[in-house]
């Protein structure tokens, strides 16, 4: 087992552990902090996947901006109290939980059986540039310019929408 494999399995374990904490923690603050951890571990995995730009963006946008938003809302609404004891799960929760686990099983089977996966690991041309800001930016501002601008418009609309929805009176 090579170093990078060891690193990957360590990161994967940490990611999954913190992800489980997100949905298991009773206190939303704990959930949010676990989520930050998950995002950071994921950023590392992204970097290992040669997606350097996305890894940086993951840290900046997800672990930074979005999570600050979450924490801010939790604080604003004083949702830190643990609340009443959890009522017994409803039928749909049981069904949904079972379905989620079953889907996971199905996906694992499907991926396991995917034999055609080409082994990777040998050096290739252009690997040095792969996933760099230069390459991603080049693509973004040439072929994908229109979707990029559309996304900027989407963000603007979301911003205005958030203000309109959250304000008590307009």
């Amino acid at each position, binding site marked *: 087992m090579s170093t990078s494999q060891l690193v990957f399995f360590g990161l994967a374990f940490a990611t999954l552990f913190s992800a489980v904490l997100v949905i298991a923690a009773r206190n939303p603050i704990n959930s949010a902090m676990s989520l930050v951890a998950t995002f950071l571990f994921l950023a590392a995995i992204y970097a290992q996947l040669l997606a350097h730009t996305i890894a940086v963006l993951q840290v900046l946008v997800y672990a930074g901006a979005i999570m600050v938003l979450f924490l801010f809302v939790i604080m604003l609404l004083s949702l830190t109290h643990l609340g009443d004891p959890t009522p017994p799960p*409803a039928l*749909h*929760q049981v*069904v*949904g939980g079972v*379905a*989620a686990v*079953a*889907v996971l099983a*199905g*996906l694992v*089977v*499907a991926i396991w*059986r995917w034999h055609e996966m080409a082994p990777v690991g040998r050096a290739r041309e252009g690997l040095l540039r792969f996933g760099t800001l230069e390459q991603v930016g080049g693509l973004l501002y040439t072929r994908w310019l229109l979707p990029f601008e559309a996304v900027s418009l989407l963000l603007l609309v979301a911003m205005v929408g958030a203000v309109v929805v959250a304000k008590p009176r307009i």
Partner: protein
Amino acid sequence: MDTTWLTKAWANPQALSANLWLIIALPAFGALVCGVFGRALGRTYVNLVACASVLASFCLSVFAFQAVAADPSVIVTPAANGVPMRFALSGDWGVWFQAGSFSAHLGLWVDHLSATMLMVVTGVGFLIHLYSTAYMEHDAGYWRFFAYLNLFMASMLTLVLADNLVLLFVGWEGVGLCSYLLIGFWYTDAANAWAGRKAFIANRVGDCAFLLAMMLLVLTVTAFAKAPGTEPPAVFFAQRRAVWTHAATSEPGPLNFKVLEEFAQYMPANLAMGSRGMLGTDIPIGPLAGHTYGHTLTLVFLLMLLGAAGKSAQLPLYVWLPDAMAGPTPVSALIHAATMVTAGVYLLCRMAPLLVMSPAAMATVAVVGALTALYAALIAFAQDDLKKVLAYSTISQLGYMFLGVGVGFFWGAILHLVTHACFKGCLFLSAGSVMHGNDNEVNIKKLGGLRKEMPWTTACFGIATLAITGIIPLSGFFSKDDILHGALHARLVGYEWVGPTVFAIGSLGALCTAFYMSRAYLLAFTGERSKDAKVPHAHESGWVIVAPLVILAALSIALISHGFPGLLKMPNGEPETLMEAFLKPVFGVADRLAIEAHSLLPEAERSPWPGFGIALLLAWAGGGAAWYLYKRVFPARAGKPAPEVFAAVRAFTVHKFYVDELYDAVLVRPIKLLSIGLFRVVDEGLIDTVLVGGTAWVTARIGSLLRYLQTGDVQAYAAMMAVGLLAGVGYAIFEALAK
């Protein structure tokens, strides 16, 4: 004098061919403008648009007519197949629709026949548009009126210009629609709306037959083209240059007139197959297999006759035309006298090369025409409504045209169509002028003495009356009596009795025509003013109304030139009229095929003059009888009740022989009862309650059960989505494993 400009086309035929669609599009555009923007544009502009579009159409038609008429290639007879070539403008705008091997093109053409019709439709149409601007000047619905009238022109021109039966049918239905709209123009009066509906439904019966005829014809022609053993279809459908046109299409579909004419050429050929050629042989393939071509064509033309009878108001479908007088008078003149009702005659003449294949169908056409001519004339005897008299007279005159078609005297029928359009248009417009000046009074017994008050109208009505009566220096004389002369000398093989019989009936009808037309003229225009008149003094109409009258009256006189026998000589020295010579390129084929198919044999040409003498005598006798009765006998007997026999006969005639009542009892009531039964059981019971109500009931019950699935809990919905996702994943894995 230099006359080369007469024998040379004024406009480039290619350019004309490419722009034939404009003749239809201009009035259609006018209809659009008048119908959509008419109210906003105001009266002056609506009048301008409506008249200008038709005038432009008329000018184009003149060029097209001149190009067709002036082309020197008309009389060329190539030795190759003995078919006289003829010249036609023709434009093709591609395939309109296609279904299997059937296709219909958007094709227009102008040959000698449609050129003649073009002149009638646009010429008379323009005069009547002009007239209407004055006639409708106080009507609030003027824009609607002109929109309909322009739409009618567009439809009628489609009918006339179409180069295949399918497109012709579009025009055919279009004029039917406009007729319906215009009969019911003053729809606030329920009687008018009912009259419109009656016309529409009577026409539906005919249209249904027409459609069936077309379908049969498609089957027949297609079977012939595809049958093994006949000449290759490619040769059949490609043009054999029987018609010389500027735009040739390789495969114009089985209902194209050129193809049908070509088809007709094959029918009598190949006499080895029996004395009647292909007509006696069985159709080899297709749904009609086992029936002979001859029998199928007879059936086709009997159905087509029923269709034509619906549109052209012949027995037994004539009942709608008298009621159609509910519409404005210009409409009666344009649609119900001059143009639309002649569509049936045009259709049968258009099909002439095939029609002559079936002596049985021709005999039926002739007998129906003759009976209608006499029958309608008899009803017209006792009508007091001036427009009703003219309506029955129209039915009667259309009967003469059918008679002419039936005895293979096609050019005579077309000539009568043209002259009839002029003098009957003139009569109707004069009647309109009379109504205009007499507060819409139409009862001829309540008019009288108009000669002094409306001199122009009287003169025009008088000329047109003389024309329809058949007095010698007027066009009606030759057009009608040419037909009767032709009937007497026509020999339909197997139906030899038809010619003389229809001649006798037709002559009797001519006598009646002279009587009732003279009666209408004498009662309405001469003598003293009636005491029951609505207005004490009538006033002459303005020049916009009078000018079309005068033009049409002048044409009624001038058109005699085309029926005058002996102006031209045929190559074999027999006399020939101008109209016969002009339409020879169209009907020459039919005449030749009739002889080849051994269905219609010409007799040695006899001098028409003795027959004309008899006809003139009959006309004078009818007119004289009317004059004697209404000027001498009845005024002298005034105040005394009529003898009972005559009163009964009169009542019988006034009630139109009780045909409406008969139809009502035999057809309308049973159908109504059946419909009510169907409505109650099938519609209300089965469809409304069981199907519609039942579907709604079941849906509502299921919905009220299923709504409990809508818990409003977003997680429950998400759970369902997860189950769906699971199903998708499971299916994908199952599929992969199954491979």
